[in-house]
């Protein structure tokens, strides 16, 4: 299915940033709901603790003829929990205000986009997809939205967008792990200190539990690790910086 309307004469692009913002606001609202739920759970825990402790918080009595008020350990815990409760309560109020603002913006955005009742059912997965995609991909809300409204099966398509955003984030995570691995492999010290320690401990553990005979069989494992590290360095094109020799250091001085 091709839309020929885009072949019309070039015009200055419209400012669609408000529409994109509306979708982005929905995604922020989703994250706020998450934080409110966490806050509410914490509040419930504090409330339950207060109910269980009951009246043994503060004891009023007379000590050596002098009236005194003592707060026990349990009381201190309750006071601390109450402080946490106040903090959580404050954050809930702030989050609620922010949430209502975002919802208001989202509703206005949705009405601006003239989404019908059927289409609002796909707006939620789209917002989730934008939220999962992260801040760096918020701009994709615009092309995703237009593709979604073009599709004859928008609900299915919107779920596909959620899958796409998830895969993109997993790819980001994989990229981050690869970056860390490359950094570790670029130095012999960073590679072999942790790995060598781990392998030595493993060999010692086997020696202590099963004796030298079994520990001897960890040697192929150590060789295997060495070959694996070298293979990975070769495959990723990582060159290990040579350790500066004493003569090099003396020349610098």
């Amino acid at each position, binding site marked *: *299915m*091709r839309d020929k*309307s*885009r*072949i*019309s*004469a*070039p*015009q200055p*692009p*419209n400012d*669609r940033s408000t*529409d*994109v913002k509306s979708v982005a606001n929905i995604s922020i609202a989703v994250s706020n709901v998450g934080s409110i739920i966490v806050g509410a759970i914490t509040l419930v825990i504090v409330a339950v603790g207060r109910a269980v402790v009951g009246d043994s918080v503060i004891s009023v009595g007379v000590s050596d003829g002098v009236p005194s008020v003592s707060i026990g350990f349990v009381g201190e815990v309750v006071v601390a929990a109450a402080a946490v409760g106040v903090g959580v309560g404050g954050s809930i109020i702030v989050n609620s205000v922010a949430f209502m603002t975002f919802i208001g913006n989202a509703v206005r955005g949705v009405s601006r986009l*003239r989404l019908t009742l059927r289409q609002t059912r796909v707006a939620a997965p789209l917002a989730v997809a934008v939220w999962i995609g992260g801040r760096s991909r918020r701009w*994709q809300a*615009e*092309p*995703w*939205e*237009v*593709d979604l*409204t*073009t*599709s004859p099966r928008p609900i299915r*398509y919107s779920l*596909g*967008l*959620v*899958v*796409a*955003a998830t*895969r*993109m984030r997993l*790819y980001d995570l994989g*990229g981050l792990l690869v*970056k860390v691995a490359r950094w570790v492999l670029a130095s012999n010290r960073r590679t072999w200190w942790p790995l060598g320690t781990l392998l030595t401990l493993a060999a010692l553990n086997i020696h202590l539990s099963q004796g030298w005979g079994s520990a001897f069989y960890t040697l192929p494992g150590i060789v295997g690790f060495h070959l694996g590290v070298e293979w990975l360095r070769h495959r990723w094109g990582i060159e290990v910086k040579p350790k500066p020799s004493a003569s090099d250091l003396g020349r610098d001085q």
Partner: protein
Amino acid sequence: MPEPPPKIRLTTTTRLVLDLFLTTSPDDPLWGYRITEETGLGPGTVYPLLERLEKAGWITGSWETGLPEDRPRRRLYTLSGTGRQEYAALQAARARRRLPRWGWVPGGARH
């Protein structure tokens, strides 16, 4: 250290999408939904692939101009010169790998 461009592997889905780019005129750019329709792939596959291809410089993305009033802009993609060259090189390498190293040649070796 600058982030290296993502490595593109020639999977079936990648070849499907790149073949579609090759058969499409540069004056008739593609966008996400159209690619899903013409290749039969789902959006969960197409959009991450488009992102990787764009980061690697194989395709070029641009915003739609001359858009109608009733909808947002599309993101249009065209195959770049780099993409064309890299794809051809990878396909050639793939074809070479498929040839058996040892095999019977009719007429015998002529070198």
